[in-house]
């Protein structure tokens, strides 16, 4: 199973014959790390990296996307190789489901439904007693199914998240990572920084998976396609953020793997430093490759494959094959 490669240092990516190398300098000595082409799923670049077209051409031959982040871990953009698997007829269906309000609403609700399922799962697993999140489960969750517009849905979702983030403090129990409210662009404290960083990595992982299918990442249902991003990726990431990122954050803080020292002090601790980023990414990669026995496939699938399966389910819905039901961790 190919995996993500994360480049945190400065250096150069180059192709030499049929191997891609990452070259870097350490104490005046040059280090050359080969990146086995068949083992690369996606490359995430956080360091200052030079890359030439020869390497880009080679990577695109193998359909390997590259995501670039700036010094603060803030997403700059992606290089997506030319898409070979395009389907005009699927794109037409994607658009049809967007312009028909009730079809669009149904999908938008499903994404939130999946997200809330994992939010509640996290709270339960963290030992939060039911009365603390009863309002989410009994009151707010049923309401999302009655919404008629995206705005109504977003408002309820906002309420759910507000409650949820308040409960973060009870879960984490660490003053350094106290959250008052969710703040992004730029994040204002360490916990917000962790959430922002995690969500942005999640978004890019989903984008890679969408890219591997015939889905068009710009046509979305919950998010508006006017966002300056691949908004279908944001839609699907809703389901996976609380399933993958939040438990990761809880775990990293509770076990003391990530502390306040892993943040850039000069910037008011609002960005992870290189060391913190490395720890986060390592844990992230481990979680993505975790497997679970799939009930219908009767095979082990990794968490990452669950994202791909989600894309397939969406395609099946769009072509009128099988009604979409969001992924809900069943264990």
């Amino acid at each position, binding site marked *: 199973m*190919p995996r993500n490669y994360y480049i945190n240092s400065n250096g150069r990516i180059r192709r030499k014959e049929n191997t891609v190398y990452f070259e870097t300098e350490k104490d005046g000595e040059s280090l050359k790390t080969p990146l086995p082409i068949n083992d690369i799923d996606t490359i995430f670049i956080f360091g200052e990296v030079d890359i030439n077209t020869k390497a880009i051409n080679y990577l695109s031959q193998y359909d390997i996307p590259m995501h670039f982040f700036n010094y603060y871990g803030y997403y700059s953009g992606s290089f997506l190789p030319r898409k070979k*698997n395009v*389907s005009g007829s*699927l794109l037409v269906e994607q658009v049809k489901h967007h312009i028909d309000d009730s079809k669009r609403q149904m999908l938008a609700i499903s994404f939130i439904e999946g997200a809330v399922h994992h939010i509640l799962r996290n709270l339960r697993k963290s030992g939060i007693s039911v009365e603390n999140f009863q309002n989410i489960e009994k009151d707010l969750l049923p309401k999302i199914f009655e919404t008629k517009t995206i705005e109504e849905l977003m408002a309820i979702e906002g309420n759910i998240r507000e409650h949820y983030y308040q409960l973060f403090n009870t879960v984490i129990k660490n003053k350094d990572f106290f959250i008052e409210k969710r703040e992004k662009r730029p994040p204002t404290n360490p916990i917000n920084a962790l959430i922002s960083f995690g969500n942005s990595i999640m978004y890019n992982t989903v984008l890679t998976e969408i890219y591997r299918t015939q889905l068009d990442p710009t046509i979305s249902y919950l998010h508006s396609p006017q966002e300056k991003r691949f908004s279908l990726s944001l839609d699907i990431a809703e389901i996976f953020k609380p399933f993958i990122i939040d438990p990761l954050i809880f775990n990293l803080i509770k076990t003391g793997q990530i502390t306040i020292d892993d943040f850039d002090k000069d910037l008011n601790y609002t960005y992870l430093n290189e060391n913190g980023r490395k720890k986060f990414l390592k844990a992230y990669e481990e979680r993505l490759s975790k497997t679970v026995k799939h009930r219908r496939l009767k095979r082990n699938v990794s968490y990452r494959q669950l994202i791909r399966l989600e894309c397939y389910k969406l395609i099946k819905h769009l*072509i009128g*094959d099988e009604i979409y039901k969001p992924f809900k961790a069943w264990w």
Partner: protein
Amino acid sequence: MIEDINFNRLKVNGIKVNYFYICHRKLWLFDRKITMEDKSDKVLLGALLHMDSYERERQKEVLIDNLISIDILDGVNIKEVKYSDKMEKADKMQVLYYLYYLKNLGIEKQGIINYPKQKKREFIQLTEEAEKELEAVLIEINKILKQEKPPPVIDAAYCQKCAYFEFCYG
């Protein structure tokens, strides 16, 4: 030449005839370009086999009418290379379709399917019976492709090994 069916309107590429005998759903999805980018070892092996087999043959991968792609073409034969003989009927019908297609262009050939892994060859000749079957199949294929929804999952034992397995069953 057939008169009662409009060959020009019905003709499809050879893979579709092959898929018709394997799975109608796969046929429908393939037609909509919903294909599975499969990086599995099996697909890789198949591609390598195609590249490496019969290097001495001059005419490889001949594309006719932008529609059918014949692996190898020599004086009297068309040859198709297959990795495994598990889907014999489908492979055979694919080659028969090529022969039938060429016949409609006024070219008479014979077919050979090579299974280099099994060290096995099968000789194929277009018969009247086969032509009848193909004509019926072309009509069926066109009906399937016109359906708005994909045909259902077939639950066959070989689904497990299909590139669409995760798509269909996930």
